[in-house]
């Protein structure tokens, strides 16, 4: 990935002034540790319940126990372990969404910017229209027909999210088209497809990555709320949204069941948002992305 290269780091330093988002990076560190080492650091199997130790409060409460630091749920499953494993589902779904609509958006944006004319007009008009359609109604339709699942969520946001990418990529493409190296490639007789993918795409990859970092927080919130509504992942998966949905029924006497999974979401999203904002400020001083 060329955007972590040394050259860019230097550039960032020279542009200076913008402090790295230590809090954000710390949050991301927690999140990715959980994702990568879930099997090692989670004290229990996240799906294994113990009916003799249900709804134990966190360790600092009166009836808390050191065995379950963040307590257990109504089936006796360890909350901490479920949160740690839930990070994987969170990343899986959000990255799935972004890859899906990101590639759709990049391709449509490239075509739109490169072809121009009527094609461009149609795609951009479509993007305007798409942007105004609520994703949740598409989810309702798809979930009604296919049944709710993580896959349905990915597909829904996959088809709904492309316009943002398409617009940015189109804008970049339009300005790159005028640059000498692209013109030269044309003169040299490269095919349009080749120019698009081997000359223009590498030049906008940074923009695409920054945009993904900025957007992933929002996607995590969105997909978690859909799972919370029961339109996404189904029990017994470990998913933060789902944990909140289950915990909500016991809100009057097991506050920890609705507090900690939510905190996990907040930490993750905060991490991505802070890092994304910083990346944008450092890498994109002209503020093309907003």
């Amino acid at each position, binding site marked *: 990935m060329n955007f972590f290269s040394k050259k860019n780091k230097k550039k960032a330093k020279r542009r200076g002034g913008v402090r790295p988002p230590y809090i954000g990076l710390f949050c991301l560190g927690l999140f990715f540790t959980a994702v990568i080492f879930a099997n090692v650091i989670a004290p229990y199997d996240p799906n294994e319940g113990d009916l003799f130790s249900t709804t134990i409060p966190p360790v600092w409460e009166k009836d808390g126990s050191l065995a379950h630091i963040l307590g257990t749920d109504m089936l006796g499953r360890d909350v901490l372990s479920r949160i740690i494993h839930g990070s994987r589902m969170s990343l899986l779904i959000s990255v799935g969404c972004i890859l899906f609509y990101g590639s759709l958006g990049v391709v449509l944006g490239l075509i739109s910017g490169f072809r121009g004319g009527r094609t461009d007009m149609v795609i951009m008009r479509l993007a305007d229209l798409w942007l105004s*359609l609520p994703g949740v109604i598409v989810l309702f339709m798809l979930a*009604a027909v296919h049944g709710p699942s993580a896959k349905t969520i990915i597909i829904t946001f996959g088809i709904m999210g492309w316009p943002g990418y398409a617009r940015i990529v189109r804008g970049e493409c339009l300005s790159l088209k005028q640059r000498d190296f692209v013109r030269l490639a044309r003169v040299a007789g490269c095919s349009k497809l080749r120019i698009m993918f081997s000359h223009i795409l590498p030049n906008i990859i940074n923009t695409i990555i920054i945009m993904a970092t900025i957007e992933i927080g929002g996607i995590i919130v969105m997909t978690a709320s859909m799972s919370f509504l029961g339109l996404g992942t189904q029990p017994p998966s470990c998913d933060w949204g789902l944990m909140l949905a289950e915990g909500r029924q016991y*809100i009057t006497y097991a506050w920890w069941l*609705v507090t900690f999974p*939510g905190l996990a979401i907040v930490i993750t999203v905060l991490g991505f*948002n802070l890092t994304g904002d910083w990346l944008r400020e450092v890498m994109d001083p002209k503020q093309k992305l907003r």
Partner: protein
Amino acid sequence: MQGYIVKRILIAAFTVFTVLTVVFFVFRLGPADPVMVMLPPNATPQDAENLTKKFGLDKPLMVQYGNYLKNAFRGDFGSSFRFDEPALRVLLMRFPATLKLGLVTFILSVTVGLSIGLISAVKPDSIIDRIGRLFALAGMSLPSFWVGIMLILFFGVTLRWLPIAGRGTPLHYIMPAFCMSLYPIALITRLSRSSMLDALKSDYVVMARIKGVPEFYVILVHAFKNASIPVITVIFGIFGALMVGSAVVVEYIFSWPGIGRLVMESFFARDYPVVQVFVIVVTCMVVTLNLIVDIIYAYIDPRIRYQ
């Protein structure tokens, strides 16, 4: 100007038509048998046969599509299984509750978001700017459904200050409206701040100051008018789409008897005609909002008006 508006109305009509078509084909051509999908869980084979006849599902697809469109234009989208009433009427009965909450949210987000955004842009790095930026970050990072749950836990369960479900008194509005406006406030604050900053840096603002125009006039007339264009897009255009999602979530959490809760209930009761009508009505609403935005644009921007 007239040509412009007519063109927008045609586009809007075309959008609604497209959505009607997509809804039809998604529900009819999905992998599941539409009759089984449409039937309540405890239906008998006889029911299935009746339903097939009733919807004309034994006829060719194109004929079905024609009938569907014809009925749609008459406002007939089938009947709700649960209530045994036209689905559209079921939906419209629950509509005022959503509208009221939506309106409160809208006013709250626009006034708070816009004023924080403008003040921050006029006085960058002031206390209000710092608080505004912190709030915007929070609004972007806190999932509204979790905030809702936390509010219920704190103000409803622990302190018992506020009612946790239903509606009736103004007190009932506090938590849902706060919850729903958190994200829009953040969005509007950020956007109005950045577009106002851009406008204040522009040459026409410098020129206005050169002419000795007083500062409040520079800000409100010269800068704000220009800065308002992207903000309006978000407030009306994206707001509609955004609100639908969070209305469903918030109504679900706070048991608010609006269409968001209705569609959730209908979905889990497999009352799909209601879900279908929800999809269509919501799209029409969003399309109408976009039409309004386009007309407001023409009013603000002479370049569009004189096209």
